[in-house]
């Protein structure tokens, strides 16, 4: 009237497989803005006359029609990869009230004969005119740099 079948199972645990290493992007090293030795005052020059700060917002010695001063910043760990453009670099200035002023990056490139050193040209905006000393920093692929002091010359 009835019958049965039996199977005896031996179940072995499977060793948890070692996850296949997922190639992780090489972390972008934080950019480093050059500052004066033993100081956080930045190494920055007017792009026309190569004078250091304080920088006026506008100047008659200018290569552009808008009259705005362009300041050269110098940084390490800023290197454009193939297919990248200067859009990967952003810059900003922060005043003593922690107001942040975006700075337009107009040029990123290596300094001649110094492949480890990049030059970043930024345009000083009008609303920065009375900011005094500001902390300038950049981001490369979203990675924040150090902050360095740059003085803005108030308008006459």
């Amino acid at each position: 009237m009835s019958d049965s079948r039996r199977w005896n199972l031996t179940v072995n645990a499977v060793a948890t497989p070692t996850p296949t290493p997922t190639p992780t992007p090489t972390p972008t090293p934080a950019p480093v803005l050059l500052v004066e030795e033993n100081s956080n005052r930045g190494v920055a020059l007017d792009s026309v006359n190569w004078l250091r700060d304080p920088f006026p917002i506008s100047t008659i010695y200018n290569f552009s029609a808008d009259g705005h001063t362009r300041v050269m910043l110098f940084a390490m760990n800023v290197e454009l990869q193939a297919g990248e453009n200067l859009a990967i670099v952003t810059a900003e200035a922060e005043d003593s009230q922690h107001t942040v002023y975006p700075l337009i990056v107009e040029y990123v490139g290596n300094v001649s004969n110094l492949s480890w050193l990049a030059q970043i040209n930024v345009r000083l905006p009008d609303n920065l005119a009375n900011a005094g000393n500001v902390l300038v920093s950049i981001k490369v692929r979203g990675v924040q740099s150090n902050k360095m002091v740059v003085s803005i010359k108030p308008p006459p």
Partner: protein
Amino acid sequence: MKTHLKAYASRWSLSAILLFLCFPQIALAEPVETIINNGDAANRVDIAILGDGYTAAEMQKYKNDVQALMTRFFDNEPFREYRNFFNVHRIDVVSSQSGADHPERSFFVNTALDATYNCQGSQRLICVNITKANIILGNSVSFSQRDIAFVIVNDPEYGGSGGSIAVTSTHLEVLELILHELGHSFGLLADEYGGPPPPVCNNTFEPSAANATKATERSLIKWNHWIDASTPIPTLSAFDGVPGLYQGAVYCDAGLFRPTFGSRMRFLGRPYEQINTEQLIRRIYNVVSPIDASQPAATDITLTTAQSQSFSITPLITLSGTIKVDWFLDGVFQSTGTGFTVNNLTSGAHVIDAVVKDSTAQVRKDTETY
């Protein structure tokens, strides 16, 4: 020269006889056709049928007679319900002459199995040479192909006999006799009729058969599980199909009891009734497992936790579909069906059980052996 030839012939004949006696199976194997094939003989009730009194010219009639007999046979319960559990093998035995001996009218024919009416002085009793029949059976079909054996005798006159090999004429009503005799030989059932002798009544001991008892206490009656509480014991009514305790069985008019008023084991033309049907089904299961096949064949299986494993059972099928397969994992019921798959088992030892059970209402009490 003739003397020499005679002597040679005598030596040859003696050698042939000795060879025949030593290796009778070589000479007596006959052609076999399996006319109902429901599966491997190892897991079926196999019926082997022999013919007697059929000449070579009558082989087609023999085939037709066998077919008709088996068609009517499987119209009867419980064989109808369990017909898939049976195979039927027809052994084509050719006789020199047609028919059977009728000594009462001095009619004799030469047949393969020496079938004769008027056996032991009883006109309707047909006897065959059981030794010859067994030799042909033994050499024509395997042991597993002859759980039940019939001889069908090519004679239309009513007659037959029981025993280890039942004998029937081609008379239509003789099937009843076959079914009755099968109750004895296959079902191990007793006759349910009383006297007068012969045979002699002996009611001093409990019969071994499932359908006879000397017990009169309800709880001790073998078929008590079939007796309704409202049915009086002993049972004096004469209604058919009502299980009870009816006086008169095994050639005794008193002192031994039968389960129903009039089953096939008492009167031809009646059904087996509940108790005898239950016994016949249990006997079928004594030969046949409800499991025809199972997969995988290996019973010890090693897996990993990440692997799945499928199991399957091929059950036999009753007409009413009463057989089902239940699956258990570590003793806990999982599902019903012919297949089962395990996935994500925890590491360690596990047990899968497939339990195949016939839930037929025709069996109320199952036992291990019958």
